[in-house]
């Protein structure tokens, strides 16, 4: 199932990656090269194997539902690119009338 230029553009948008046109062209070839090696899996008889393995597993470890936040050595304001009054500051959605920063 080779990917097209439009496919790569679509998945880049889903992944929130901006790609220049020349990079887009290169990636079509690179991804198809890699995906070609994955085709071998389609020939393997494997139905039900994952479900059987899952049911044999012990399951998730549970813990008491109590507050247990790890204290932070520095404030979020020291780590985040932009904050105001304890909130993370981001540009407005482009769909809003004024796309300037809030």
């Amino acid at each position, binding site marked *: 199932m080779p990917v097209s230029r439009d496919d790569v553009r679509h998945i880049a948008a889903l992944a929130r990656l901006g790609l220049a046109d020349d990079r887009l062209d290169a990636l079509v070839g690179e991804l198809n090269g890699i995906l070609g090696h994955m085709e071998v899996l389609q020939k393997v008889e494997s139905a039900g194997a994952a479900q059987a393995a899952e049911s044999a597993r012990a399951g998730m470890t549970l813990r008491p539902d109590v507050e247990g936040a790890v204290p932070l*050595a520095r404030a979020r304001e020291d780590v985040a690119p932009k904050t105001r009054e304890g909130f993370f500051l981001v540009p407005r959605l482009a769909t809003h009338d004024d796309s300037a920063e809030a």
Partner: protein
Amino acid sequence: MSRTARVEASFARAAEVKAGADGLNCIISADREQSLADAAAVQGGALAGVPVVIKDNLATLTLPTTCGSRVLAGYVSPYEATAVRRLRAAGAVVVGKSNMDEFAMGSSTENSAYGPARNPLDPTRVPGGSSGGSAAAVAAGIAPIALGSETGGSVRQPAAFCGIVGVKPTYGRVSRFGLVAYASSLDCVAPFGRTVDDAALALEVISGHDANDATCAVRDAPVLRAGAGRLDGVVIGVPREYFPPTLDAAIRQRCDAALDALRARGAAVREVSLPHTDLAIPVYYIIAPAECSSNLARFDGVRYGMRVEGDGLQAMYEATRSQGFGAEVTRRILLGTYVLSAGYYDAYYGKAQEVRALIARDFTRVFADGVHALFTPTTPTTAFALGSISDPYEMYLSDIFTVTANLAGIPAMSLPIGRVGGLPVGGQLMAPHFGEAAMFRVAYALEDELGAEAHQ
């Protein structure tokens, strides 16, 4: 030697071997004064005053944690990884953060925003990856112990290339709290040591349950420091799929010598089969990118790390991520997004999960059939030259003997078994889930029996 003198010696060695960007480029951040202050404050413990190097995807409080990426340039974590905290609680002193393939995606440490790291045994060659900086630091004598992380062989492969010991614990043996996530169903914190005993000590210290990681097993830390003894009654399986006719003859010869050494200690060696081995690379390179595409969604310029402004929120996300991530990370995010997307999920991701279960079942069957540990080469080649592999899939194939243990979740380790053309060859041991103690018993015996031959 006093604790501060040991740390001084570590920094002197780092300067001597040029650990920074003008040389091996294995250490990307360090703070000598802080490390000396830490050494002076050490109260005691199993690692009192021992210098350790930490891979740059493990959160540390005083040095940056960048994952070798532009997107996290300058980021200093507000909390500390459990594995790092446990090393420090045992008296170890962090002397540097090590270079790595960006977000642990690579097999050579060439995919780093800080430039490639180099192999101390031959600086024209790679140290392996993705934990290549940690491996190079141990091999260069900067620290006897380092932490790396494993998703598909990122500790065992560089350990093999640099002639040291690298251990991938059972999935869930070591807390991943503070390890920046790449592929969560595979990621493990994994130690390097100069010797089997160094690695055993490090793994003993960092193991054990941690309430901050829901995937960390509720088990006590294992006792691993058994020392070298006889292996009477131990059955070593040799999977034929790991010794294909195309395997380098000199590497095969080194493996044969290691198997002879195990026999000399009383072990029985038996050929076995793991029939789904050749499917491991395609399975891994579907599952790992799928999980990475989800885990790396958090690097969007909002809560931490770099931000590149754009016209509106979506443009800011796209500008930040496209300028923050390098080529291999971008490739894997796209691949992962594709295999999870509507219409392709079952054909790729669903299928890969099914075949992953078959790979795990191969191991279960062999171990149920009386085999205590498996022996294989760690890598199909010795360390390759910087820049010599440009095709992404060809690079992926350097993990061909290591990804299986990650997919199955079992413990595995690499230790030196000799040299070919002056370059180290690694021998790999694999054991059943939580079978680290048995695996180390074999490793101690093999290291002892090979003696100096392991480095010749």
